[in-house]
Each structure stands twice: as structure tokens, then as C-alpha cells.
């Protein structure tokens, strides 16, 4: 279980909600659960190959998950996942 902060450009997909709570023990599970709950997010968050869209950066609390264990990073219930455009630094995955 984890809180996920939704940036404005994605809020139409979450019915305007800024923050949602979804289940999951890892970053990957939380993102999968997020897309399962709000399917409209799939187009923006998930690349055709199944991984994260290269223009999306995901932060666990304050840390870029690329500095952690990416999708395998463990998530505690008190954690917040932040989804931001890759403007805060981009990379081809």
C-alpha cells in the first residue's frame, strides 16, 4: 500500500485527485495497481514495450527510483510515490 502523488497533467485520469492510495509491495506493483485502478493512465505511464514510459520519472519519497532498485524497490505503507515528467531529468530506458 502506498500513496501516489499525481501531477496535474494526469489528473483527468484520476478524476481530479491529486493523491491516491493503491496496494503494492514494490514500486512496480504500485504502478501496476495504479494503472489497473485508473486505466486511462496506461497510455501515459506505460511504454508499448511494457516498461515505464521513458518520459516518466518516478520518485520514492524524494529519491529517483533509478538510484534505488527501479521497479523492484520495496515500498512501505508510509511511503509516497511521486510521478513527474522526465523534465526533472530524462533518460532513455
Amino acid at each position, binding site marked *: 500500500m502506498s500513496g501516489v*502523488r499525481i*501531477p*496535474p*497533467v494526469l489528473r483527468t485520469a484520476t478524476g481530479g485527485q491529486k493523491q491516491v492510495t493503491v496496494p503494492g509491495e514494490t514500486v512496480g506493483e504500485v504502478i501496476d495497481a495504479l494503472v489497473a485502478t485508473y486505466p486511462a493512465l496506461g*497510455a*501515459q*505511464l506505460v511504454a508499448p514495450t511494457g516498461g515505464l*514510459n521513458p*518520459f*516518466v*520519472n518516478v*520518485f520514492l519519497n*524524494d529519491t*529517483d527510483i*533509478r*538510484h534505488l532498485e527501479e521497479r523492484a524497490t520495496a515500498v512501505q505503507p508510509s511511503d509516497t510515490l*511521486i510521478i*513527474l*515528467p*522526465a*523534465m*526533472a*531529468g*530524462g*533518460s*532513455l*530506458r
Partner: protein
Amino acid sequence: MTTQTIDPTPAATESLLTAETDAARAADGRVRGLRCRNCGRLEALGPSYVCAACFGPLEVTYDYARIRAEIQRATIEARPPGIWRYLELLPVDAPPERGLNVGSSPLLKGSRIGRELGVERLWLKDDTRNPTLSFKDRVVAVAAARAVTFGFDTLACASTGNLAGATAAAAAAVGLRAFVFVPADLEPAKISHALAYGATVVRIDGTYDELNRLCLEVADEEGWAFVNVNLRPFYAEGSKTLGLEIAEQLGWRLPDVVVVPVASGALLTKIGKAFEELVDVGLVEPRPVRFVGGQAEGCSPVATAFGNGSSEILPVRNPDTIVKSLAIGSPADGRYALELVRRTGGSVESVPDRTTAGWIRRLAATEGIYAETAGGVTLGAVEAARRSGVIQPDDEVVALLTGNGLKTPDARLFGLTDPGSSAAQNGLTPPIRPSLDAFEEWLDSGVWAREPAGVAS
């Protein structure tokens, strides 16, 4: 890229346009809107930077057919100096009423330093002398003009240093409130510079990349005009003016090579866009230009990807370099810079800090130009690209000096053995009495004799 930007918008994309887009287009004429660099979707002109469909970055796009019909060398040449002489290729309706005097910096022959670098025809684009002493005045001028027309009351930025002063001064000139976010360990000269213009300086205990992430959230929460976040498409267009000036100053020609310091990669990418646009609208003849980027060894994610032949840019978590102005570990436009460099047969060079400091000293000692750390990196990149053969001895090369040495006063001494105490190295000798005797004694003693301002290897 050239064909992409002048292509008519595909019908599918056109159907996504709203009435608001049509209004924005009518108001701006030449400016068609914001186009996603990833999927090509067109959006209305506004303070947005992310594609709603695919999350890709947005870029300003123009009606190039119309610009081609209107733009003329003579019209541009007849205008006053400054970035607005290239109005047709900038995303504003008219030159703003208020703002600083930015741009038209000199393109100087660098023959003395060129000889040391083994480059016969070297030009130095001296952007150390903009209003706040860096090229960032260009990008901020465009973003600030847009912030005013969009009706914002606060101008803000996420800065590696130079942007803070540029944003603070521009906000003062156009009458907006300024909040500038900087890493707490920034050079003191840059912090006090921003404070002097009345800006609120938000010092963040973290890296640039961490404060940039924070600023993305603050931009959304506070509704401020962050020049390099929500106004980034407009900000980035300002970088084109360096490329436009270079072409005009060469007599409406493109050089063989341009050498550009790389932080986010926006500057390098946008000089590429400027050259392509000049060809598209018929102001210069096409010519293959190689793009060479420079990064500091202690924060060189783009140079590393280039060296590995990889298209993946791995972020650098903890930059460790004296070149704070380029210390972006996760560069927003890195992929586009890498792509441009590869496509043109250029390179991205990684320059050690000692080499950077050495070139700062050599540039000052041979050309009378005092550049900040990014300028030392640029010359280090010329040297490295010359050594690898990317730059040939007879190439016409333009090197960008994007910031002033007064902002990084300690950098020139970096790597010297004992900079604190040796007059031979730092040039500082003890004060003497105001008498001719004392002076002659001092002169005879030779304490003032300087070591050559060499480049460390």
C-alpha cells in the same frame, strides 16, 4: 528534424485542436503552438510543458512557410542590437516593452588561444557580457516576456547558479516577484548576485536534480512562472538566439563546428534548431555542422553515454566538480543533445576540473576574456575533440563562452599546488609602503614574478 518541423500538421493531430488553439494561433500568427517532441501532438500556446497524451516534452512550433515569405536579412540587419532582432523566430508577438538589453554579444577571433588549441580558425562567442554576465539572460528574456503576457505575478527558476541572477534581474526589470531555487553550496558570488536584484533566494540542501524535482511540484502547487519548468518551451527558444547571432556574425553562414557546454542539453539542442530554421527559412545555405558538447568529468552523464555508444543516459546522483553551472546529473534534454551530436559526427567530451581551470587561465592570459567554469569546459572540449580528430586543424570552429569568470572567482586557482600562499601562482603579493624606495625593492625582489598561466594536463 528539419522536415518534421516544417511538415503540415497531420490531420489526426489537427482534430485534437480546440477552439482555444485557434484563438492562440490567430493572436500569434507565426507561432503555431506547442508541439510534443515525442508524438508530434499540437497543443495550444500556454504555460505548459508536458504532452497530455504521451508525457513527452513540448516545443514551440512556427508557421515556417509564412516566416520564409516574410523574413529578410536586410530587415534583421536594420534592427537594433539584441535578441529581438530575430523576432520572427521567437515565440512572442512583438518585442516586449519592458526587459533587459540582452544579446548581440561579440563573435571574436580567437587566434591566440586557437594556436594553443591547434585550431587555425577559432571564433569565441563572448556571452560573458550579457546584463547578468551569462547567456541565461537570453532564455530568461523570452520566458519573462511570456510570463507577463500569460499574466503571472511571480517569476521563478530552478538554477545551477547563472539562471538565478538572470531570473532575478529580469523579474526586477519587468516588475514581477522572484523566487530562485539554488543548491545551498552554490558559489557565494552567484547567491549575492541574485539577492542584489531583490529576489528571494531559496537555498536547498541537495543537488540541482533534487531541487529541480521540488520545483516541478512547486510550479504546480503555487502557480508560479518557473522559467525552466512550466515556461521551458519558451525559455529554450531563447537559446536559439546564440545560434542565430553566430550565423549573422559570420556573414549569414554556418561554421564547421560549434562547441557548447552541456548541462541540461537545451542550449546545444536549440543551437541545432536555430541552424535548421535558418536554412528552412532561406537565410543561410545548408552546410553540415558538427556539434561538440562539453561536460565536467565529475558530472558527465551525456559524455558517458556518448563514450559508451549508449542511447541511455544514466543519471549522476552526486555531481563532484568545480563546474557547478553544469552540474545537472539528470539532464532533461540529454537524449536530444546526444542524438544531435551523433547525427552530425560530433562528440561529447568529458573535461577534468584541472584542465578546466587551466583553460580559464589561458583564455584570460591570451585573449583578455575571463570566463567562468563552463568556458573552461568548452575550451577543454575543443582540445579533446581536436585530439580525437572530430575537429580538424583547418575547421572553422565556434566556441561558446557562456558565463563570466567573476562569478566563479576561485575556479582559476583550482589544481595549483598552493594557491593560498604562493604569489607566483595566484599573483597576490604582500602590500608595500607608498614610496618609490619600497617599490623598487619590491620590483628587484622578484616576488611578483608569475608562473605561466598554464593548462594542467
